[in-house]
């Protein structure tokens, strides 16, 4: 009575199901007998042996989480159809998280085999509707679409948006594909929308655009300063480690426009007006410098530019700072003294510092503060931008799918470096930088860009000013989207190629503290979906190149040979050593736990402090738009919801969008929790339900970024970008609010709980 996997029809199908039921019945009987006759101990043993037996039939692999960039590792269990469980893996294989995982990493896998997961390529039929296509036809269409633009207008008229969800190896190929196959430097990724100002700011001051710390430093610091980071919701596992340290006596300073949940654990929470971060940071530096609380020896031996900084911060007088940022002088003083008193301090931030029209300046102000207090290069000290996408550090940065850099932050304008890549890739590469993501959408307006290849990125929701982004996507001559789903962006595509998720492939991710970790295949790709690297290879070969990678390990070998930072990062070592932190120059190099222990990555080995003056948001509130809108994340959702909206449990918890409004403001407008509110900016308007809470100040409102129906990026500004990093100012938009006619939404217990977790 072999139970076949193939479902049969009719009577045979019924009998097949009946057999299955019969087997279960017999099991029940056996269990009943056992329960009556066996001791609990024996039953437990039996259960254990049955459990072991059943696990033998599952595929188990240790892998690295595909949600945020904390880099949690765990064992995933799959029966080949779906992910059944996530359980802790060996401690040495999980250096960042140990046994911890957050709700998304533990349970958020329904997206992998959700019904709308795309498993077959799609092309447009003669009426413009999507129809199924073979890979052969779909790839031919891509070659034709991209190829004809390339022929007529040159490769520069094309761009690639790479995916920080994909592996390092795949991102390396995305950069190579753009430059070698398409002939364009316009390749960029989501980092532009988040931490590119961190990368620019830290690279300019210290040399590396990355966290200097190891995650362990968060637990051995005496003091942690967090700003613009809703750590408990956006990086829950890091938050756990910080909270543990605070429990054991460390000081925690939180500066944020919203009283986010981590603020509950803070020694000091200070509410700041959004958009003036350089001001309050400089004020702290000013107090430290003027009162001789700085680390003189460190400044003397390891930095340049101190005098310029000392001079620049003088304008940030207590009165002015309080007026602009809303922070009373005594709070600046107490924070300054706490930092100065600490032997070891870590400075952590997320997008609240970076998503501004002057984000790079904010980051440099923070870099100055860390340097003047000597908090770099030693255990328990350093700077720690918490990266958002699982592999935005490695895939989005290190692997160089960037308009200005090759892998390893090697400048494309450098003739020697460019020659190295031209030789290795057998192609010519222009020394001119390509377009940043945000600039691509502006360039397309002028027909400077005519075709796009968007991989694993939901630009139609995530770009600032999405009304504009949608127009651009619709007008493009050719758009190919490679994704797991027909997401909001793919709806504009000429061709949609079905890619597969991180549980269906092998490679590496690099986490927020520069640790390169293995991603292992837990289940076969769904349907006809393929890993990004295989799709890229097929396309490259159809476009006249000869790529012949048999595995991602081979791709990594090529990365090793061209990227000094990753010189010794091979799959074998990552596998056997359970993670390797860059820089890792060669096979004998042990990797780098903490940056700048001996020298900074600058020409003279010193930190180059940068004088940072006054800055303010590009758009400040006025009579017409009197409130400052800031945006962010909630715990149970992730980015544009492509992954989390397919998780039933998660959608029960935070099912829809909302706006946080201060009780005073709400009272003025006659708004109560659950009422619908119309929110209008100079770019557009949306209607969302109200959550009245003093988590935000009376002059600010907050809306999460995760929901398509009410896309908050209809309100944000696509034009005012950070001059150095081209990061948009997601964190500040001037808006007005008004009660909307729509039916009020009941505020459920779950909503209230979600709010309380903020």
């Amino acid at each position, binding site marked *: 009575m072999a139970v076949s996997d193939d479902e049969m029809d009719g009577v045979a199908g019924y*009998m097949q199901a009946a057999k299955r039921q019969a087997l279960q019945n017999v099991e029940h009987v056996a269990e009943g007998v056992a329960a009556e006759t066996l001791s609990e101990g024996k039953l437990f043993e039996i259960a254990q042996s049955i459990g072991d037996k059943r696990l033998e039939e599952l595929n188990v692999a240790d892998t690295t989480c595909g949600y945020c960039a904390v880099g949690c590792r765990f064992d995933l269990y799959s029966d080949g159809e779906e992910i059944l469980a996530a359980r802790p893996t060996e401690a040495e294989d999980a250096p960042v998280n140990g046994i911890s995982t957050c709700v998304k990493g533990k349970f958020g896998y329904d997206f992998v085999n959700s019904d709308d997961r795309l498993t077959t390529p799609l092309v447009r039929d003669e009426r413009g509707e999507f129809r199924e296509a073979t890979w052969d036809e779909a790839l031919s269409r891509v070659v034709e679409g991209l190829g004809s633009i390339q022929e007529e207008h040159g490769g520069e008229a094309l761009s690639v948006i790479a995916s920080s969800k994909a592996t390092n190896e795949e991102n390396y190929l995305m950069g190579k594909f753009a430059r070698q196959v398409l002939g364009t430097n316009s390749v960029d990724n989501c980092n532009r929308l988040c931490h590119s100002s961190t990368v620019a700011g830290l690279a300019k001051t210290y040399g590396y655009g990355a966290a200097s710390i190891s995650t362990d430093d968060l637990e051995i610091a005496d003091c942690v300063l967090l700003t613009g980071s809703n750590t408990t919701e956006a990086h829950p596992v890091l938050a756990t480690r910080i909270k543990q340290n605070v429990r054991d006596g460390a000081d925690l300073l939180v500066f944020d426009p919203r009283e986010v949940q981590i603020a509950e654990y803070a020694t000091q929470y200070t509410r700041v007006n959004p958009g003036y971060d350089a001001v309050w940071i400089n004020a702290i530096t000013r107090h430290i410098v003027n009162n001789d609380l700085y680390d003189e020896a460190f400044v003397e031996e390891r930095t340049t530019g101190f005098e310029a900084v000392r001079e620049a911060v003088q304008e940030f007088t207590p009165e002015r700072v309080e007026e602009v940022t809303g922070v009373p002088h005594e709070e600046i003083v107490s924070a300054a003294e706490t930092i100065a008193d600490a032997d070891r301090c870590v400075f952590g931030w997320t997008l609240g510092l970076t998503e501004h029209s002057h984000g790079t300046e904010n980051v440099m102000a923070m870099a100055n503060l860390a340097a003047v207090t000597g908090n770099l290069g030693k255990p328990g000290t350093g700077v720690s931008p918490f990266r958002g996408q699982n592999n935005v550090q490695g895939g989005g940065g290190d692997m160089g799918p960037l308009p200005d850099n090759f892998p390893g932050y090697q400048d494309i304008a450098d003739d020697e470096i460019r020659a190295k890549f031209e030789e290795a890739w057998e192609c010519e590469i222009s020394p001119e930088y390509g377009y940043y993501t945000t600039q691509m959408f502006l360039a397309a307006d002028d027909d400077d860009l005519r075709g796009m290849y968007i991989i694993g990125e939901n630009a139609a929701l995530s770009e600032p000013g999405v009304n504009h982004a949608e127009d651009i996507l619709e007008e493009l001559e050719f758009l190919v989207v490679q994704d797991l789903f*027909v997401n909001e962006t793919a709806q504009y595509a000429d061709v949609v190629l079905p890619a597969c998720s991180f549980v269906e492939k092998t490679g590496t991710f690099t986490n927020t503290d520069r640790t390169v970790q293995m991603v292992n295949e837990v289940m076969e790709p769904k349907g006809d979906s393929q890993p990004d690297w295989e799709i890229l290879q097929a396309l490259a070969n159809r476009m006249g190149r000869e790529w012949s990678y048999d595995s991602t390990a081979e791709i990594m070998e090529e990365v090793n040979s061209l990227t000094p930072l990753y010189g010794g990062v091979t799959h074998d070592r990552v596998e056997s050593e359970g993670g390797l932190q860059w820089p890792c120059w060669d096979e004998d190099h042990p990797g780098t736990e903490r940056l700048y222990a001996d020298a900074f990555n600058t020409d003279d080995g010193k930190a180059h402090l940068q004088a940072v003056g006054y800055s303010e948001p590009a758009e400040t509130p006025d009579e017409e738009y009197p409130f400052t809108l800031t945006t962010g994340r909630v715990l149970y959702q992730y980015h544009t919801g492509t992954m989390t909206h397919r998780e039933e449990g998660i959608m029960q918890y935070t099912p829809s969008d909302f706006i946080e409004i201060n009780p005073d403001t709400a009272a003025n407008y006659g708004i109560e929790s659950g009422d619908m509110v119309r929110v209008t900016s100079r770019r557009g308007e949306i209607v969302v339900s109200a959550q009245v809470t003093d988590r935000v100040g009376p002059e600010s409102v907050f809306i999460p970024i995760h929901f398509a129906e009410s896309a908050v990026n209809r309100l944000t500004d696509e034009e005012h970008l950070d001059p150095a990093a081209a990061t948009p100012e997601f964190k500040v938009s001037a808006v007005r609010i008004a009660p909307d006619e729509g039916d009020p939404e009941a505020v459920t217990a779950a909503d209230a709980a979600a709010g309380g977790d903020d």
Partner: protein
Amino acid sequence: MAKPTESYPETATHGSTKRETNGEGDAALQEALSTHGEALAEAVDSTDELQDVLSTAVLIAASADEDELEHVTASAANLVAAADGLSTDGAATLATDLGDNAEELSASLDTVLVLQREGHLDDLVAIATAFTESLSAAEVEELSTTLEDNGTEIVEALDLVLELQRGGQLEELVDLANTLSALEIDEDTAEGLNNLLGAVGEAQRSSERVGVLGLLRELRSRDARDGLGYLVEFLKAQGRGLRR
């Protein structure tokens, strides 16, 4: 250049690869099965374990192929061999008991096999389904017991109900009075069989406990059928032993 298009063929998605329920086949029976399938499942769930096993025996026999039938109705020697496979003294004791009853046991299963060989498979399923939908759990149990007990009479009874069914008299088919009187149920039999599991437990307690562990192992093995056939036959033999 492409207009935003929300719709796309569902067949391009993972959802389309999941099992589609109704396929082709005898339309009427299909309908009957899909209508009653849930009720059957419910009935099976709501009746006690003994009932489950008896239904199971019917279903397995009705859907098994020749080779499988041979296994299910295996000779005493096979049964003993299977029990020996458990390699425990306790199980061996049980197996000896079973061996004594093996012949009788095979005969009882033959009842169902006849139905299949004569091409009544579909009818059997339809009837079982209709019954379980219309009868209470206790009634189903009794009926199953009767199936178990009444060898050749059952075939006759089934012939009767099949005729009713062919005549479209489904209501009559499930009419309790008609059916049960035709089957001449012995009420004591049901109660007797109800005590079966307890008896198994008793047997286990008096032989060593590891027996059940071995049994479980058999059930969970890749070839679960071996264990299944063993259990079905074992229970029947025990039941017969009790009645004696």
